[in-house]
């Protein structure tokens, strides 16, 4: 049983790390602000869920697991809100997402 939980937890941790890593690459490589934000929010969403889920499995039925779940709830509330606020601020200051936009890098 312990082995199964261990393997499951490692799978979750690795998958989460991969998502965070991809999110990081995307944040650096994507051409425009909104696409970068999309990549960055990958870290907040699925990356957080997978990594903290893996850590909860490592912790077992302890107080630490409860704390990790509390952190997960907090991050799931704040992360997307922060992404929304960022996108909204960009939109309000006149940055419109356009189709076939000229990339900032190539300009």
């Amino acid at each position, binding site marked *: 049983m312990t082995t199964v939980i261990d393997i499951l937890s490692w799978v979750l941790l690795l998958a989460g790390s991969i998502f965070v890593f991809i999110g990081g690459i995307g944040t650096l490589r994507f051409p425009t602000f909104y696409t970068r934000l999309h990549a960055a929010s990958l870290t907040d969403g699925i990356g957080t869920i997978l990594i903290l889920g893996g850590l909860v499995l490592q912790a077992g039925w302890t107080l630490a697991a409860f704390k990790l779940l509390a952190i997960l709830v*907090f991050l799931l509330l*704040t992360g997307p*809100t922060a992404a929304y*606020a960022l996108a909204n601020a960009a939109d309000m200051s006149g940055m419109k997402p356009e189709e076939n936009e000229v990339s900032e890098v190539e300009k």
Partner: protein
Amino acid sequence: MVTLFAVFLLTLLVLTAIAVVQTKNLFVAVMLMGIFSLLMATVFFILDAADVALTEAAVGAGISTMLFLATLALTGEHEKPSKKGPWISGLVVAITSLILIDATFEQPYLGDPMAPVQQHVAPWYLEMTPELMDFPNVVTAVLASFRGYDTLGEVFVVLTACIGVLFILSAGPGAPNPKSPRIPTAPSVGLRHHLIPRVVGKLLIPFIVLFGLYVQFHGEYSPGGGFQAGAIIAAGMILYALLEGEKQALKVLPQSVLIGMVVGGAMLYGMVGVVGMLMGGNFLDYSVLSSNPVSGQQIGILIIEIGVGLAVCGALLAIFHAFAARRSVG
């Protein structure tokens, strides 16, 4: 493994510091400083200094970033080009670094049991805290009781800093800087028309304040205390001010109440010392506050931590509101 992680974090710290110096955009610099503080908090945490880590995260990464941003809203976000060449400052930095690097060779290794800091009063603190105060967090014991004079001094530094900042900011507004870009939102309304941040903020603010109170009153048993709690509660209130607008926040906690909190907190701390003297002990000797010296110590530490928390929370909020008021005038 921990060493590897520490080296990784310290490398990131150096890179962040270089980036802060390099960038000409002050907004970017402020954000990088926030990242720097967060990395620093992590470094403190892996050195087992959880209390300092909490302070660094709450004050360094949270509140000071906020205050820097408030300053930038007044001054504009681009650094003025310096006329002098970087040679003099570069030379000073090079010489100072060489001296510091040379000094590290004389330093004891991390965790060396023969280091002076482990030999001097630290063992006595560790040994006497359970006996004199009967609670596990030695940091709180050192901060609030053994070195109570220093902490009293720090609270008065907070008070003085608050007076100074309010004094400068409440002076009449200068000529408005035409170059400074204004963020196109009315500051007094806040984010009231944005549903999502408002709903999430309303959900979170009670928990932030509750966590602040936990850090305040659980400081004798777990990392925390007045400084951290004051910063966390202030952060919760600043979030409220951002969401609901300055007016509403000032209705909840008016500036006069905040200044009363700063002065009252510092006074509360000092009065505990005076009461101790009146009851026949030394200044800031809490043992005489109760018939049992151990519970006397606990009562004294609890009260002075409340004083610290009030002073820090009031000072941070008063400074924040002063910046905001200045902005709506200018």
